[in-house]
């Protein structure tokens, strides 16, 4: 990995991102509305339900941001002709996208906290976390797991300009399957198997451990197992993304499709 390129793309992504006010919609408005809907469905605005809803909204915010940013940046590069300039440089596309994904994860954390703060401000339920430090540590790890997923999704956009369809299809299923919306145990058995393969599922479970006093794992695992599984699966996804990205680079040089948008 090229640290210089990672830092440069992080900075470039930050400037680009902040200059485009569209990010507010998927990152804050959408998860916030979702949180409100969850609360009104439950007709209960007491501690645990608010926390469950806010947690779901926060994860949706992080995921929506990851998928929006992962798809938008490469689409923008293709549309704007900068993808060719990037590709022409000696830096691997993977390194550039790592920097961008780290920014996306960072802004996702900010979004999650904003959702939490706004919900708390409106409902004033005095939500408390069982283990605040552990919660934010796990939240950061979960964000990294989402960022690694974002890397995998980005490969679709390197391969083809039509990647946006893939990202649209992936957004809500991942959210449901990871257990952020409903407990994994409530999903059909077939989907539960897929849940265990997703790093964010373990992250969501671990976050609940840290948030709720006396939480009984929906996956039947300990907090440590959740964290280990999340980290290992994230690394595995990153490795897969790395190989797919290299293959994608070769494929677009062969097909001559780098300039299509």
């Amino acid at each position: 990995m090229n640290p210089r390129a990672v830092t440069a793309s992080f900075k470039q992504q930050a400037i680009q991102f902040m200059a485009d006010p569209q990010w507010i919609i998927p990152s804050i408005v959408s998860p916030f509305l979702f949180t409100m809907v969850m609360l009104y469905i439950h007709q209960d605005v007491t501690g645990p339900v608010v926390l469950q809803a806010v947690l779901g909204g926060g994860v949706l915010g992080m995921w929506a941001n990851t998928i929006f940013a992962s798809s938008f940046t490469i689409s923008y590069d293709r549309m704007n002709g900068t993808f060719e300039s990037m590709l022409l440089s000696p830096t691997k596309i993977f390194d550039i996208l790592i920097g961008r994904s780290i920014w996306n994860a960072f802004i996702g954390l900010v979004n999650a906290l904003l959702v939490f703060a706004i919900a708390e401000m409106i409902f004033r339920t005095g939500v408390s976390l069982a283990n605040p430090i552990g919660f934010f540590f796990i939240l950061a790890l979960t964000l990294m797991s989402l960022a690694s997923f974002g890397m995998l999704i980005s490969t679709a956009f390197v391969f083809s300009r039509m990647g946006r369809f893939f990202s649209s299809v992936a957004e809500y299923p991942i959210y449901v399957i990871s257990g952020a919306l409903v407990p994994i145990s409530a999903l059909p058995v077939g989907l539960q198997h897929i849940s265990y393969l997703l790093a964010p599922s373990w992250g969501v479970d671990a976050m609940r451990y840290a948030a709720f006093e006396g939480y009984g794992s929906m996956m039947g695992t300990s907090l440590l197992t959740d964290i280990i599984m999340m980290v290992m699966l994230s690394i595995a996804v990153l490795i897969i993304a790395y190989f797919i990205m290299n293959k994608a680079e070769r494929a677009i040089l062969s097909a001559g499709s780098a300039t299509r948008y």
Partner: protein
Amino acid sequence: MTCPEYAIVAEGLTRTYGPFIPGSAGKVAVDGISFKVRKGEIYGILGPNGAGKTTTIKMLSTMLTPTSGLAEVLGMDVRDGKNIRALRKRINVVSGGERGLYYRLSGRQNLEFFADLYGIPKKDQKALIESLLSLVELIEAADIKVENYSRGMKQRIHIARSLINSPEILFLDEPTIGLDPEISRGIRSLIKKLSDGGTTVILTTHYMFEAEELCDNMVILSRGRIVGKGTVDDIKSSISRVSSLKIITEEDPSDVTASLCRENLDAVTSRLLNERYLTKITLNNADRAFTAIEDLFRPYAISSVGVEEPTLEDAYLTLVNEGL
């Protein structure tokens, strides 16, 4: 095969698009072209739209894998994946038009980003970027977002970006397209300066005067094949059989002009402001036909006769049309 004298050696270079490329399925974009570019020269690739100029540049700059043939750039085979990143450090590309920059970043931020992608040490970046901004005369606009730049400014920041790695070979794909004459002249002057400094420049352009002014050597492509190659003079002389004969007469020679047209000669008469008549005749063999034609016009009181040699544009059009 490594030729230190040459920056680029292309032999039988071919590119065919695959069956799933919309609008180009199975199309042979470049068909077995061969040429050599000496280090430090400005080499033109001319041809009409769709002739294969951009495809050739893409193959030579590692952006497109050739289907077959050899392409050696700075002694490295562009088909070998192991060479690609090493080669990219030593070359760069400027495409005409407004795409290829981050519009929400300033000119300076764009250069800083690409300097990092090219691994330029941080300690050298500031001075390098300042010198490039100065070279393209954008010091004062350096901190303005690119989205607020004029087309000419965007093209100049493109050129600055392409020089960030001090490339040994610079590929310029229609660098003055759509620019006003003053900015175009500035860019041509910059290209000469780069060449004088030892940079090999590969230039595609539709402007013949630009090619004539800048290029040491060139190829003319038509439908993916080379139809002309050499210096400007070589290209012109390759069609020297085609000349224009200009005859000015005191009286209207339209009758003769019409009879020449009937003999399939391209002849046109027009009336001049000073009550005289100018007839232009395109000849395939000037030496043989000259005297005979002059005799035909003598009864109309010839005041002057001249032979106009072909321009690069004449040669280009002839070669391209022959290649169709």
